[in-house]
């Protein structure tokens, strides 16, 4: 006749109770977020386009916005001064004077949108509407001869833009240097 070992069953129940209690244990801090609340701050954009808002713009719509908001620091044509140069520099990365711009260096077009959207204009960040950010992004890509003047950028087309330096990045190989801890008669 089958006789269950109640002590073992009891032990198993206790273990499962305590472990599930541990797993579920929280410090009970914070407030649960609604999707709408998350949406308000969830501004980042990934290279695959995740996070891009509705809206659109082209170099045609972006040019007057660039002149109004960006040119004072970045130059009429993105040539820089006083702030960073945004246009040109293609082919310079392996020379003695690399010029690192949106066109020559940045690997993804989404970065241009994300950075303008979160941090520009310098004196009034997060003041531009999505259509304006798409437009200025398109204008910078146009100045860098990456897209035509009339190409419309939106959440679908922007991630498809292939930047010139898309494959210019490698993973960190360090430690890549191996110094010998010499003590005497060392060659400096």
């Amino acid at each position, binding site marked *: 006749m089958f006789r269950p070992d109640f002590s073992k069953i009891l032990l198993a129940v206790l273990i499962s109770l305590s472990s599930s209690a541990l797993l579920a244990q*929280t410090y009970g*801090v914070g407030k649960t977020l609604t999707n709408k609340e998350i949406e308000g*701050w969830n501004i980042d954009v990934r290279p695959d386009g995740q996070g891009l808002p509705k809206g659109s713009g082209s170099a045609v719509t972006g040019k007057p916005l660039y002149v109004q908001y960006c040119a004072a620091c970045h130059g009429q044509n993105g040539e820089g001064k006083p702030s960073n140069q945004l246009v040109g520099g293609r082919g310079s*990365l392996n020379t003695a004077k690399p010029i690192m711009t949106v066109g020559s260096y940045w690997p993804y077009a989404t970065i241009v949108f994300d950075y303008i959207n979160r*941090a520009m204009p310098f004196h009034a960040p997060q003041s531009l509407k999505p259509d304006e950010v798409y437009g200025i992004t398109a204008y910078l890509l146009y100045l860098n001869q990456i897209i035509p003047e009339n190409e419309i950028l939106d959440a679908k087309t922007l991630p498809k833009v292939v930047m010139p330096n898309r494959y210019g990045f490698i993973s960190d190989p360090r430690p890549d240097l191996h*110094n010998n801890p010499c003590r005497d008669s*060392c060659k*400096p």
Partner: protein
Amino acid sequence: MDNQKVNNSKRKLLASAGAIGLGGLVPNSAIGQSSGSENMPPNIPKWMKSLGEPVNWRSYGLPSEFEKHVVKFKRPSDQPTEGVSLTPLQDLHGTITPSGLIFERQHGGVPIIDPSQQRLMVHGMVKRPLLLDMNDIVRLPSISRVYFLECSGNTSRDWAKPVSKNVQQTHGLLSNCEWTGVLLSTLLDEVGVDPKATWILAEGSDASAHTRSLPIGKCFEDAMLVYAQNGEMLRPEQGYPLRLIIPGWEGNVSVKWLRRLKVGDAPFYTRQETSRYTDLMPDGKAREFTFVMEAKSVITKPSGGQKLLKQGFNEISGLAWSGNGRIQRVDVSTDAGKTWREARIDGPVQTRAVVRFTYPWSWNGGPAILQSRAVDETGYVQPTRSQIISLRGINSRYHYNAIQSWGVNSNGEVSNVQA
């Protein structure tokens, strides 16, 4: 064994050098010599003949008025709200950086945040997205740890050739503090991270909404949510009221004024981890996600701009640190790298924290080139400048950790040299 030797040689030096005063080294003209005459026996100085300042004359203490020269140095920049200020390492002692002298790297100014307004959003690939206020954060189990913080651009201006005058300008994007807060893993366990998650985006609430991606392993290993440094709440320019500290990694990822953590399954590739903080190599390729600050050291006394006053005993003292763990050893050379001897490491050796090393040196009055070389617990040896340049060229702006050379001339003047 080596320490024993150092101690023995130190005793000999002490015996031969005779009286040793603070005046062995003149960091600048600010150390007063004019007051010496008043306080010579048998005169009684004026400060003994009258009462001093009242108790609690400053309800928040300040350095002596004779230390006014010990300040951060701001580099010229396009915008006053963007750029760096550097820590005056040549005037500091021990290992802890005073809170008011910690270097700054700001991208959009210093936001002034009422802690009652502070909120941290944690969302993305988590079971329970949460919004936390400071009361929530402070309620969580707390820890305090000493870690260095170094900008990955530290010393990069001297990459191609020595141009900086003193150690503040060569190495002053370095600080070392006790940080208090919560292990990031505590918070991540609280929200329940999806096992498929691999990266976390950290976003600050400054005007640049500064943003970096972090591999999730580091977030669970030793990353901290920090609200206090050196025993008091963070200073505004250091991220008050809440920041990340990512031990041993480039300072840029220790996001200040933290407002959002988003858990994801890929790096986010923000501007600050592509356009900047990537390391351009001679072939035109750039290294990305170069987080670790490898082992490095520098002599702070004597260092550029200082002057040795007397021949004989002059202690060499400096700082060493490694983003890959504990400092195992520091070697010092006084002959431009021909001979190296082990320095004494003073005080506790903690992982990813600055140690102070000292080395007893007798200056013979002739020219000398002083160098230090850090070795960490992984066996990594701080490289020479020529080793770095031969492999990485001179176009990169980040992670330059070469052995620093200070030249002493026969007048005792110390300058930044290439050796």
